[in-house]
């Protein structure tokens, strides 16, 4: 149930973990998602919104067209819009968007989610609590499932570390290599889906290094060792829900 004081923000074209994170980060703000430009316009027409965050790369119609439709449509002309763009592909975009009646604010990629939160705080006039420590789960529901499978995840990490250790000692054989590659592959898929994108990226690099042959290229053993340490660090820091999440995520109904 939404409290009357809640402000609704529509997040268009972003991963759901950002929506879940913002929903926990911003007190009194509820965050909904739309995957395409069509869904965005339909959602805006179907309710009252305090702001919209729109990505330039939004699929069908793209972000810029959606902003124009908002400004020329009835009822949403004054809606605060935070527009996120890729500075590599659109050097002149920020200037044209920065002035009303287009985007109210602009933010370049790569996005810092704390920066998104700060922009929304400014647009909505809410208070921003101190940030949670990095690497926390997007919601209490995700953190709970993570805790159930934490042992499995760290067993996978142990297999990766074993391969890295053997490689550092110049004794990597085919069995540990294959096991390390297999477990790194699983971590790539699982960690990122839990919202731990940095862990997924590191696991991907480990998988690539271990792929194919136990004879590693020069320098690979040292890199593996360093990646193993980094992966352990990000995994150990993960799993504690943000203090402000309050357990209101709707996905918790499914438990």
């Amino acid at each position, binding site marked *: 149930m939404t409290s009357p004081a809640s402000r609704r923000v529509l997040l268009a074209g972003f991963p759901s973990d950002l929506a879940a994170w913002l929903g926990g980060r911003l007190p009194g703000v509820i965050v909904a998602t739309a995957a395409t430009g069509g869904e965005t316009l339909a959602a805006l027409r179907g309710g009252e919104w305090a702001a919209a965050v729109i990505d330039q790369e939004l699929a069908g119609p793209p972000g810029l067209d959606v902003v124009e439709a908002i400004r020329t449509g009835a009822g949403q002309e004054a809606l605060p819009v935070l527009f996120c763009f890729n500075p590599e592909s659109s050097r002149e975009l920020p200037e044209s968007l920065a002035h009303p009646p287009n985007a109210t604010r602009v933010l370049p990629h790569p996005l810092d989610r704390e920066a998104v939160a700060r922009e929304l705080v400014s647009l909505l006039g809410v208070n921003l609590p101190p940030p949670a420590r990095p690497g926390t789960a997007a919601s209490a529901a995700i953190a709970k499932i993570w805790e*159930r499978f934490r042992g499995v995840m760290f067993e996978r990490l142990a297999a990766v570390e074993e391969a890295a250790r053997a490689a550092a000692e110049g004794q990597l054989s085919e069995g540990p290599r294959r096991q390390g590659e297999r477990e790194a592959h699983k971590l790539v898929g699982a960690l*990122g889906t839990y919202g731990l994108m940095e862990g997924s990226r590191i696991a991907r690099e480990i998988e690539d290094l271990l792929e194919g042959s136990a004879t590693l290229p020069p320098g690979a053993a040292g890199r593996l060792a360093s990646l193993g340490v980094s992966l352990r660090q990000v995994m150990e820091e993960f799993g504690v829900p943000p203090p402000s999440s309050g357990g209101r995520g709707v996905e918790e109904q499914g438990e």
Partner: protein
Amino acid sequence: MAWEKVLIADDDAALAELMANHLRAREFEVIVARDGMQAMMAIRRSSPAVLLLDIFMPGGMGYDVLKRLQATKPPPAIRVIAMSASTDPEVPARAKALGAEEFLQKPLDLEAVHALLCRVVGRPYRPWVYGG
């Protein structure tokens, strides 16, 4: 309204459970299979509307499941979405050639999976709400 039945076939229990939790909260009935053989049995027994199929599983690769589905007479009325963490472009191409309708690259954006499932089963996708 009856919830559409979705079969998740993935040997990674940590991932399958996370997906199942997300989709059950969004009013899908979810069954989980841990390998290709379990997936075929679940299709026969439960007739799910959609199969979310991991390509690299023990006990029968995802490709084998797709081949068996193609060989089944009459073909089961099931829509298949393949998934993999592999970045090899051959993987989605081969999965689609064997009958998968869509391909999802792992790691997954769970809300994007929800949106895709809605499209595949013809259910209107409603933006999901967090926080408040």
